[in-house]
């Protein structure tokens, strides 16, 4: 079920209302049932795959606590490999067989191509990683195994974050299913406000920009350099608003029910370096890779060359996590390369800025760093959005050519849509800026109720009137 659908507009109030009417004993059952309905709205049969993952890790968690020490590691690996096997079959089978056949062809060994027609279960990578996080934490003794299957299944399937995160850690979420969540007006209204902001990002900003981006990236050779550049900048905002909008709605929906999910974004485009960007972007995934891959590989407490390799492995796999396509792998490796270049050139850059009279913390230097980080990130997003490496290469090489100011619109995106698109980005930026500086909720809280309601209702009407309702899936659902 999409958050931006009429079905969800009915589903959510019903689920919430009944949740608060039930006793604690039945609440978790209710949430599990609601989550199943939510997931089955996509492709019902795929819930069985989810159940397989749940059962593997549920029993793995219990036996990790029971078995003798020497069997724990093999059991952990068995659990990890079985869970990943599901992910591999559904997400990567075609990619790896195709790549293998392609590679064999380079050596003159021509193998037939077998493409299995498998539809990727929605959000598979998210709940796989959430499940893996549970068994790893149980293995490390940082989390007790959950013996109640309903509670564990609800932890994996909790509908607000089921299909696109945030990827929760058991320490944060699991215990909350055993707690009593009082109906709290402040919690509910704050959650709804957060959802409204998420809908603004998704419907008003992301989905409108998507009209332009989809046109251009579906056939980049039909568009001018200026259109390619606009589409690439639009995509940077589209993917941010699409994904962080989803996270806002997920966190807000959970908050309405009294649950607290981890933050997933902290205004990433305000980052002054690529390293900082990754501390602000998709935080739940970045920390997952950091804790379960980068640090076990040795992190930065190894030789410089090994550190570089660790970074590239982490980012390469992070790219592959996003999608079974070389564009994602190269996107990940490019970000890894940015980071490596960043720390290798840090001293040189500091000396350069000092020499031109721009020491750290000056506004001008910060502006240059911010603009550089945004540009590098946007450049990398081209790989993320392009359908193939060929398309990405075309976009990279044609961004600066043929800037025809008379050809801006596309088939779906008429000229009259530009002011709305640009204005929505401005509102987004102003909203984020004001929230950082003057704390909008504090000011709103001080207003009398009629004024507050007028402003809230006005904001909702802006979302309603300027939103795009083509039921576009959230980009990260495909991962």
């Amino acid at each position, binding site marked *: 079920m999409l958050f931006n659908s009429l079905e969800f507009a009915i589903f959510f109030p019903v689920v919430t209302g009944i949740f608060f009417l039930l006793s604690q004993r039945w609440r978790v059952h209710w949430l599990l049932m609601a989550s199943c309905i939510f997931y089955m709205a996509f492709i019902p049969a795929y819930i069985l795959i989810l159940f397989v993952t749940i059962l593997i890790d549920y029993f793995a968690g219990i036996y990790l606590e029971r078995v003798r020490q020497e069997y724990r590691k093999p059991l952990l690996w068995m659990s990890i490999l079985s869970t990943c096997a599901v992910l591999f079959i559904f997400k990567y089978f075609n990619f790896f067989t195709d790549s293998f056949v392609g590679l064999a062809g380079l050596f003159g060994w021509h193998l037939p191509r077998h493409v299995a027609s498998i539809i990727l279960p929605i959000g598979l990578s998210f709940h796989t990683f959430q499940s893996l996080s549970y068994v790893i934490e149980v293995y490390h003794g940082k989390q007790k195994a959950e013996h109640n299957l309903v509670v564990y299944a609800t932890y994996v399937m909790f509908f607000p974050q089921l299909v696109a995160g945030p990827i929760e850690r058991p320490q944060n979420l699991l215990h909350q299913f055993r707690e009593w969540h009082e109906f709290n007006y*402040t*919690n509910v209204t704050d959650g709804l406000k957060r959802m409204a902001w998420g809908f603004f990002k998704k419907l008003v900003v992301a989905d409108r920009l998507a009209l332009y981006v989809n046109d251009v990236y579906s056939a980049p050779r039909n568009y001018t350099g200026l259109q390619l550049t606009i589409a690439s900048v639009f995509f940077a905002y589209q993917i941010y608003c699409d994904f962080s909008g989803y996270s806002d709605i997920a966190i807000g929906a959970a908050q309405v029910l009294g649950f607290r999910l981890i933050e997933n974004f902290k205004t990433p485009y305000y980052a002054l370096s690529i390293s900082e960007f990754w501390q602000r972007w998709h935080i739940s995934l970045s920390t997952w890779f950091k804790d379960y891959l980068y640090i076990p590989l040795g992190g930065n407490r190894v030789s410089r060359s090994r550190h570089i390799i660790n970074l590239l492995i982490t980012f390469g796999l992070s790219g592959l996590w996003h999608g079974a396509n070389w564009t994602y792998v190269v996107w990940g490796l490019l970000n890894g390369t940015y980071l490596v270049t960043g720390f290798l050139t840090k001293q040189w850059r500091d000396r350069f800025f000092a020499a031109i009279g721009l020491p750290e913390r000056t506004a001008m230097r910060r502006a240059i760093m911010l603009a550089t980080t945004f540009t590098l990130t946007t450049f990398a997003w081209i790989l993320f959005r392009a359908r193939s490496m060929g398309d990405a290469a075309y976009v990279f090489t044609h961004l600066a050519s043929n800037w025809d100011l008379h050809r801006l619109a596309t088939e*779906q995106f008429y000229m009259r849509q530009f002011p709305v698109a640009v204005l929505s980005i401005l509102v987004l930026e102003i909203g984020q800026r004001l929230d950082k500086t003057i704390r909008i*909720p504090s000011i709103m809280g001080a207003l009398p109720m009629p004024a507050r309601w007028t402003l809230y209702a006005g904001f*909702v009407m802006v979302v*309603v009137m300027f939103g795009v309702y083509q039921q576009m899936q959230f980009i990260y659902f495909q991962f």
Partner: protein
Amino acid sequence: MKWGTEQISVAKAREPVLDPLTAVRRLAGFFALLVALAFVTNVVIAHGLKQIRTSSFGAWNQVMQGKVNADVIITGSSRATYHYDPRVIQGGTGHTTFNLGRVGSQTDVQVAVLKAYLEHNKKPQLIVHNLDAFSLVTTSKVYEPAQYVPYLDDPELYQSMRQIDPEVIKSRYIPLYGYVVEDMNFTWILGVKALFGYSPKQNYFQGFFPRDKEWTDEFEKFKAGNPRGMSFAVEPEGIEALQELIQLCQRGGIRLIFVYSPEYSEMQSLTINRAEIFTRLRELAVANEVPLLDYSAWKYNGDREYFYNSQHLNAAGAALFSDDVAKRLKTYLASQSTTSEASPQQAESK
């Protein structure tokens, strides 16, 4: 924008904890306010759109408000809208004329529009129905549906539109749905502006929209994408729609004439099943004694001076065509007998 931990503490400090019943009442009150706001906005937009006197909205408003009452009515798709200048036809025939063509429409929608016209206006003497290669195709999605939304409270129009697209029920009963969900053109802004006296540019003249455009590269793109040409569906429901139009005229005692208006010649040869389509159209015309004027062999069909793409004449082409069709209609209106089929060449020979 975050409403996380710190905001909750701010909010908690702001007001005392509400008991659940008061809290639910307050939430229900706010949502009731939103729903009321949506209804009011919907009414305001519809009211504004109905005020417009210019553009396609102005033409449509004239129809729905019963202000047309013409002797001759042109129906059809965009090819009707762009090809027939009622001012020329009116001058040539001496009969008041109005162009009821709807851009992006198929026969089923054209019939719905004609029914709405007949309900609100006096019966015309003659209906000139423009035919296309896609005349026997049914509508999968109503084009620019927001234009119809202000008038969905009209039972005749609503029922006709609902038969074509059952989803229209949402536009009828969910406030703002037809303006924001189904429409990507911000039509609602036109409605709001109209309330303050701002009207769109006047580009429709008695329902006719002259296209002051030169030949574009659309046809070249089409050819590149369809080097072997393309077929248009012949759907039983499409044939039924055309029969319904015929019966509507027969029941009302309105004379009907089919016109296949000019089409760029190269496109004609790219329409793979053109012969099949014409066979069906002729069969319908002959069986129901409806004259068919076929402009497939019009002498300007190969001249890009008069077209802006393969399907549409530009303003210059429309002027030539309207003048020609006016002469034929004058003869036809004057005559008592009808010819089952006549080409412009045949008419000229007469």
